[in-house]
């Protein structure tokens, strides 16, 4: 999985919110109204995603939801991904041109000072099913997921229960899920931290168990807040089979490369606090999330949206998102030749000291004399690494963390996280009938 391949499917939060809406629609309306008064809802969207000089993804999605009179609902969602482009291999940019041999035997040459990338093309499909059944104040939601791409297969199921308390002013949500994934790298699975010549055929398993607990609460007539905690345990093959770490000579020039190696377990936690505040007509949404895991990564995410009403059915919502993460303990910009190898090492920039800023907006409107709502969202994301001056020029990058677990020393003077510019456009359409 060398790509910035798209993710899973419907996050927990999505399921939580759908569950809550339908629950409150079934009889006693003490807060939220239904999404629609019909029986069937169609939601469809297409994401166009492009990174400058790297990956391009087109992702259409279609979702059908059928509601019954007793409040139960069933939905099915299909997401397809078509991905092409080039993905960083993890090799260190060098002052001279580098030639890399890919898993399938083809070679590619990277110009001096450019981040070495590897071309790819992949296709992914994912199917999700949800079943919501309101039982008075308790609403369980059962979900199933299956997805497939060339070298990755995922199967998952989850159960989330939301409980309304205190005249439906408070909602408690508890859920758990399990995923069984299989990674079958093209060309076989290389041994970690080796030259990659010895490969085992067959698949590697990855199991993910997750749990979540959340509480949402009406504070005033205008203000809704919520807190959610998530804990995820991953076990199995967590390494990126196509990514490498450079071996550097005494002056820091990459002279060779090794396959990367990550631990076989990962414990991840997150806590998210969110708020929705209704002004006269407009609504302000704020979310803050703190994440930490046992690989040494800690991150802060701050998300801000302002929905501005332009008419009865038209609105514009500007959006700002700020993100910062610390690097993984075994994150390395390059391993020193001659020094004993560490237990784990990865140069995957996604485990590095990342910063990211997003600026965009969504425009929502209805076509005249037509049911259903259309949305158009345009966003720009800039991602860079701490230590990188953001202009792409070389600069001193901080070494690995002071954590004693890290035994990698790096003399890299190039940015290990090159800045990326990303543009996304999402076209959406929702209609009930």
């Amino acid at each position, binding site marked *: 999985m060398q*790509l*910035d*391949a*798209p*993710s*899973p499917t*419907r*996050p*927990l*939060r*999505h399921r939580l*919110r*759908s569950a*809550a809406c339908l629950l409150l629609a079934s009889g006693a309306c003490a*807060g*939220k109204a239904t*999404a629609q008064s019909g029986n069937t809802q169609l939601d469809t969207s297409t*994401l166009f995603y492009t990174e400058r000089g790297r990956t391009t993804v087109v*992702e259409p999605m279609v979702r059908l939801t059928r509601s019954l009179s007793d409040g139960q609902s069933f939905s099915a969602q299909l997401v397809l991904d078509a991905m092409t482009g080039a993905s960083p291999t993890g090799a260190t940019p060098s002052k001279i041109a580098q030639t890399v041999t890919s898993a399938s035997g083809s070679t590619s040459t990277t110009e001096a000072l450019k981040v070495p990338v590897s071309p790819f093309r992949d296709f992914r499909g*994912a199917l999700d099913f949800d079943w919501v059944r309101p039982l008075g104040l308790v609403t369980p939601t059962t979900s199933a*997921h299956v*997805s497939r*791409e060339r070298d990755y297969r995922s199967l*998952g199921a989850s159960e989330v229960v939301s409980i309304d308390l*205190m005249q439906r*002013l*408070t909602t408690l949500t508890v859920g758990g*899920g*399990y*995923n069984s*994934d299989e*990674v079958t790298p093209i060309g076989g699975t290389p041994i970690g931290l080796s030259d990659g010549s010895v490969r085992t055929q067959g698949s590697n398993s990855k199991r993910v168990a*997750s749990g979540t607990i959340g509480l949402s*609460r009406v504070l005033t*007539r205008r203000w*809704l807040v919520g*807190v959610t*905690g*998530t804990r*995820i345990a991953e076990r199995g*093959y967590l390494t990126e089979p196509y990514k490498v770490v450079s071996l550097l000579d005494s002056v820091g020039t990459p002279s060779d490369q090794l396959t990367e190696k990550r631990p076989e377990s990962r414990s991840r*936690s997150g*806590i*998210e*606090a*969110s*708020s*929705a505040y209704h002004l006269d007509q407009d609504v302000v*949404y704020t979310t803050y999330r*703190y*994440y930490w895991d046992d690989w040494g990564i800690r*991150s802060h*995410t701050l998300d801000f*949206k302002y929905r501005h009403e332009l008419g009865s059915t038209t609105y514009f919502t500007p959006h700002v998102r700020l993100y910062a*993460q610390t690097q*993984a303990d075994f994150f390395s910009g390059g391993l020193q030749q001659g020094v004993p190898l560490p237990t784990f090492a990865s140069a995957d920039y*996604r485990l590095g000291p990342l910063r990211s800023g997003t600026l965009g907006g969504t425009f929502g409107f209805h076509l005249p004399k037509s049911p259903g709502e259309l*949305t158009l*969202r345009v966003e720009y994301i800039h991602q860079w690494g701490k230590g990188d001056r953001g202009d792409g020029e070389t600069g001193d990058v901080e070494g690995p963390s002071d954590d004693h677990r890290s035994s990698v020393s790096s003399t890299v003077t190039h940015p290990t996280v090159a800045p990326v510019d*990303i543009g996304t456009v999402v076209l959406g359409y929702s209609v009930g009938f």
Partner: protein
Amino acid sequence: MSSHRGVLGAALLIIVIAGMNGCAAMSVHPWDRDLLAEKKMKLVPSPTERAIDDHIYFSKEGSTGGQGVGGGGCGCN
């Protein structure tokens, strides 16, 4: 260490919000829920947009946005 702080922080937030019992229950009557009844008054106003965002950032960053439960599907980070 940071793990304990995180869990403590989470517990504290949940206790504080749960404890706002008295205040909220008194002031927000069922007939005061007009604004809250609007479709856009949700913590996640557009689940589709949220799913797309979680997906993009999950692939590009090292954290996961709470989509662990039942999600999964790629080894991208």
